[in-house]
């Protein structure tokens, strides 16, 4: 490989004089485009206040790793797109050694690229194309890449291919991940690459996730027939999304205006349309070295472990690669920066401790990373946790596998369980224990000050549980849900998935496809529930649900308007996406539930539950008819499914709201309303009452319990044989 690489480089040199100036310049100077914003919010709540690329990974902001990686590979010109929190990133880099004004910068050019109203990676790259900043081969990386790969050989191979044909536009740098479970593989979304064994040409790309209904991948038969005689289908690769691109890649982005994601849209699309565009993309698969993206909290955790395990060598704390660090390795793989102190009887193991941090006596710290200026009290137990700068942890507190951001104050004797995320400046009083993983923040997802939750966090607190409304917009089958928490587990998701999915294939056996995604705690959950809409394109499914819910909600919010147009739109969407009945039912249930929940909140008048339910279903002319025809549209089994959908949606949306108590009575109110409107029948409601799925999980059971009165009443009514059929209209 390397031998070939050298040859090609020398041949490139030989040809150079014949070429135009611009091109030869491109060959000499390696350029890089850094996407410091990936238009995702998987690091919430931390990214509400800080950009992802400045979050500390082993006490160093993520962007430093990316820039060191570029410097290591001899990159000369760097263009950074900052996106969210642009000012913070620019200020940070402006003060660092990377700034072009700094004499120490290894880059000859470091330029920020500002793109107005960019909403996706695609928008940024299309803008880059317009500006024509890059004029030769360039590296396209994200601002959260951690890698120690030397790309010389790959670059030379890329150059050689490009010399051979202008259609060879891109080389992806991938890392082999082995057939077995691996912590640094992305959880949730598995990239699948089809690569020609001989030429390394990438023939097909797709993504799979355990939430999708069909556990198979469809490939263009032309791949086998025309493109390749020998190819590998690899689902084991670790994709750090480091690409060597020619400027044609940007041009291709411009041509396809609707591409958003570099992999799922661009790569998939370009490879699929190979006949049309005639472009070829190659994959260099590295067995050595290290490359990964801290693209979500689980990856953040994995990469931190890899740094502790020295896989990212030389980017390990002990080497002090980053300016002004003075780490030293001590016994038990404890890496302590000068200026940190710890009591002699503190037990430290396999951890990183930043400067000016003090650790009290009797504390036990394992596999953790502690930032600078922290105060860890005595008898504290820290396990697998990340504590960023200037955080105080009181005596006797126990923290396991959690992230505590900067300036957090945790009182004495607290207990913070696995998976908790505590954002900047949160204060927690003494002796507070959480039973489950908690996400706390002082601001809401829109950056406003939160009303503090004294019940949960004690009198001295300034924070409240963090609730991201955008979570709801996501389809329940969107795999990005799997990446939002620190702990990867399908267990919780099974519940919510099964709760919305309606067709149960009860004896679906374990699929080989997803068995390797499963963490141990998912194994004993009821995975057979994990199913199953009619097989259609997963992207289409997601957009259908989101679009449909939005459309319906808008119509409902208009209140007085006619519902027919909304119905028309909905049916159009259905046809366009080939949505199944179950999906429609889900969308309808979600939309009405959200409207009802909305009506209970004080901003919308704070109606009581029955009024809200009534308003939601009857305010718009034709809405009830719509629900009857489209949402339920059938006999007892469909009715049961619809109620289940309502219940699940309600469980979802009332979460984290202050009106929890109020909205929990919404279910009986809505059922009653639907009963009154003759949309649901007794059989349906009673059938649901008997259904085992209705008690799937704690909150579901709680919701069901609220309906007890209604059901009892219905049962009585049945016995009394429709004595007072319509009297319930007025009673609440």
């Amino acid at each position: 490989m390397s031998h070939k690489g050298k040859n090609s480089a020398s041949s490139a040199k030989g040809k150079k004089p014949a070429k135009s100036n611009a091109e030869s310049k491109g060959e000499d100077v390696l350029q890089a485009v850094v996407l410091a914003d990936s238009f995702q919010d998987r690091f919430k709540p931390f990214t509400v206040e800080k950009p992802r690329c400045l979050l500390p990974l082993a006490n160093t902001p993520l962007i430093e790793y990316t820039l060191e990686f570029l410097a290591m590979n001899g990159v000369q010109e760097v263009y950074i797109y900052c996106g969210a929190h642009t000012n913070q990133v620019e200020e940070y880099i402006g003060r660092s050694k990377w700034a072009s004004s700094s004499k120490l910068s290894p880059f000859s050019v470091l330029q920020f690229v500002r793109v107005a109203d960019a909403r996706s990676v695609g928008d940024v790259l299309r803008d880059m194309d317009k500006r024509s900043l890059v004029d030769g081969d360039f590296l396209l990386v994200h601002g959260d890449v951690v890698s120690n790969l030397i790309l010389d050989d790959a670059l030379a191979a890329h150059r050689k291919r490009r010399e051979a044909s202008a259609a060879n536009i891109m080389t992806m740098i991938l890392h082999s991940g082995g057939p077995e479970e691996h912590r640094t593989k992305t959880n949730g979304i598995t990239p699948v690459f089809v690569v020609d064994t001989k030429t390394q040409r990438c023939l097909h790309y797709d993504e799979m996730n355990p939430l999708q209904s069909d556990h198979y991948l469809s490939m263009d038969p032309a791949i086998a027939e025309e493109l390749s005689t020998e190819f590998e289908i690899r689902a084991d690769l670790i994709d750090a999304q480091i690409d060597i691109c020619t400027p044609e890649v940007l041009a291709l982005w411009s041509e396809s205006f609707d591409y958003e994601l570099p992999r799922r849209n661009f790569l998939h699309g370009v490879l699929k349309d190979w006949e049309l565009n005639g472009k070829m993309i190659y994959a260099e698969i590295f067995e050595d070295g290290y490359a990964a993206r801290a693209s979500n909290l689980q990856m953040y955790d994995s990469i931190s472990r890899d740094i502790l395990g020295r896989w990212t060598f030389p980017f390990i704390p002990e080497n002090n690669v980053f300016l002004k660090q003075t780490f030293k390795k001590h016994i038990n793989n404890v890496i302590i920066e000068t200026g940190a102190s710890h009591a002699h009887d503190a037990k430290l193991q396999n951890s990183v401790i930043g400067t000016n941090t003090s650790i009290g006596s009797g504390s036990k710290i394992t596999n953790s990373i502690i930032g600078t200026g922290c105060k860890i009290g005595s008898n504290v137990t820290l396990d697998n946790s990340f504590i960023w700068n200037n955080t105080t942890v009181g005596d006797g507190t126990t923290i396991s596998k959690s992230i505590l951001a900067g300036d957090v104050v945790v009182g004495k004797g607290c207990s913070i369980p696995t998976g908790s995320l505590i954002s900047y400046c949160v204060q927690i009083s003494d002796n507070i224990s959480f039973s489950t993983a908690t996400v706390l923040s002082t601001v809401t997802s829109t950056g406003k000050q939160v009303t503090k939750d004294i019940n949960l966090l004690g009198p001295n607190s300034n924070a409240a549980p963090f609730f991201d409304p955008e979570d709801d917009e996501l389809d329940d089958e969107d795999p990005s849900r799997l990446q939002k928490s620190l702990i990867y587990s399908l267990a919780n998701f099974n519940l919510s998935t099964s709760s919305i999915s309606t067709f149960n294939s009860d004896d679906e056996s374990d699929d080989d496809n997803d068995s390797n995604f499963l963490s141990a705690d998912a194994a004993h959950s009821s995975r057979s529930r994990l199913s199953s809409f009619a097989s259609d394109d997963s992207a289409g499914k997601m957009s259908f649900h989101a679009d449909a819910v939005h459309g319906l909600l808008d119509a409902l919010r208009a209140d007085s308007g006619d519902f027919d147009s909304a119905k028309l739109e909905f049916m159009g969407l259905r046809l366009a996406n080939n949505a199944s009945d179950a999906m429609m039912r889900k969308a309808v249930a979600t939309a009405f539930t959200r409207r009802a929940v909305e009506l209970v909140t004080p901003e919308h008048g704070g109606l009581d539950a029955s009024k809200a339910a009534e308003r939601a279903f009857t305010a718009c002319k034709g809405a009830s008819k719509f629900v009857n025809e489209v949402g339920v549209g059938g006999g007892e089994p469909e009715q049961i499914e619809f109620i289940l959908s309502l219940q699940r949606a309600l469980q979802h949306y009332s979460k984290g709201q202050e009106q929890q108590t109020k909205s929990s009575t919404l279910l009986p109110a809505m059922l009653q309303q639907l009963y009154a409107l003759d949309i649901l029948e007794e059989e349906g409601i009673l059938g649901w009452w008997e259904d085992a799925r209705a008690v799937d999980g704690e909150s579901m059971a709680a919701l069901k319990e609220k309906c007890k009165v209604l059901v009892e009443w219905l049962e009585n009514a049945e016995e009394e044989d429709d004595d007072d059929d319509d009297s319930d209209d007025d009673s609440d």
Partner: protein
Amino acid sequence: MPSVSAGHALDLEKFLKSLKGQALEASINSLISLLKRRQIRGSEPCAIATAHILLQVVARSKWHDVNSLLLNVSRTGRRLVDAQPNELVIGNIVRRVLGLIRDEASEDRGDAGDESASEAPTPTDIVPPASISQQWSSKRFDSASSATVAARPPLVSSYSSINPPKSLFHLLSTSPPTDGDVSPFKTSGASTPTWRGNASQIHALRSEVIDGIEEIKDEISQVDDQIAASAEVQIHPGDLVLVHQPSTTVERFILRAAQKRKFTILIAMAPPRRQHSPENQHAAFRKKLSAAGITVVNVMNGGLMAYMSRVNKVIIGARAVVATGGVVADAGSAAIARAAKEQGAAVVVLNGIYKLSPESPFDESSLIEWGDSSTFVSFSDGPLVSGAEIRTALTELIPPELVDTYITNLGTHSRDHLSSLIADHYKREDADFHIWEEALP
């Protein structure tokens, strides 16, 4: 400039090329980054890079008397040492340069005109300064040039490196106040008035120091040849010689002996790394040996001990030698040295004099460099990555009592002799240059 070599990734060669075009501070920082990122690794490249950058410091930094020059050099040196504390040679080169400056300064001060004029050329005419810049990259293995150097008797050939001790002797006899008992700053401080404002003297000092550093660079580049000169004395016909992961120094040494002697050589190889099949290791070396008619036996580390009873000599290339005589060498050497000691085989350590460090760390672990976990375990082995803690030592310390002979470019030494070598090459006041520098304002 970047088009000269194939890749974009940085290495020593690129760094040396970039020196001319860059500002001094930028060069220092880029070297520090390279050291930290381990893109320059190994004692010889580190020593060469250090010598080059110190040459730049002397030539281009601002200084108007000896004190400020010393300060500049030691400051830069300290940063380099901090960047890669495990490479002792960096500190050694810095000390050599500091000593050189002190020598030249006191020489010039002692007898202003004639002394420096007569003394200075003597060392430089051993190697003409014209060839310095390409010397490292191209001429290292040029046997023609090495033969002339090596043909000299050992003492003469090492003349260049005796230069510092010679001038130290000279210095001791002419100007006693500079002896180590007195703080270096008092003496040089007292002398500053004579220096200040004397541009020509500064200029002379600058060029002399630069010449001196060029000599150090030459010395580094010639070390292998000079060490190889004593090969015939060490290796006897019929010997069974064991080498462990031969470095270029060791290879040259063995190949030189192979020209005259018939012996058998055992090559102890590193444990199989993941990519390189064991057959590929040292292939060129083995080819040359068999061309010379030497029997070569490859032994994996594990099977080594069975052969040990028959081995006459173990030859180990050092990465550095500490003041006590302990040898920092590739991981695996210490076990071999111990086994050799038990079986009565001689342990011979090859080290250029520039690898001999005046430091004697009290903590062995601070000398050992830990490497990349992926050296022996593939990162794609998921269960092993998450389930095992992997430690890869790159170097280890061979205790001094296991070593019989040290061969340097100055000849063959016993352990007891090391201290006088250290005294010859380094000044006492520079031994802890990285500590006293900090005490300054």
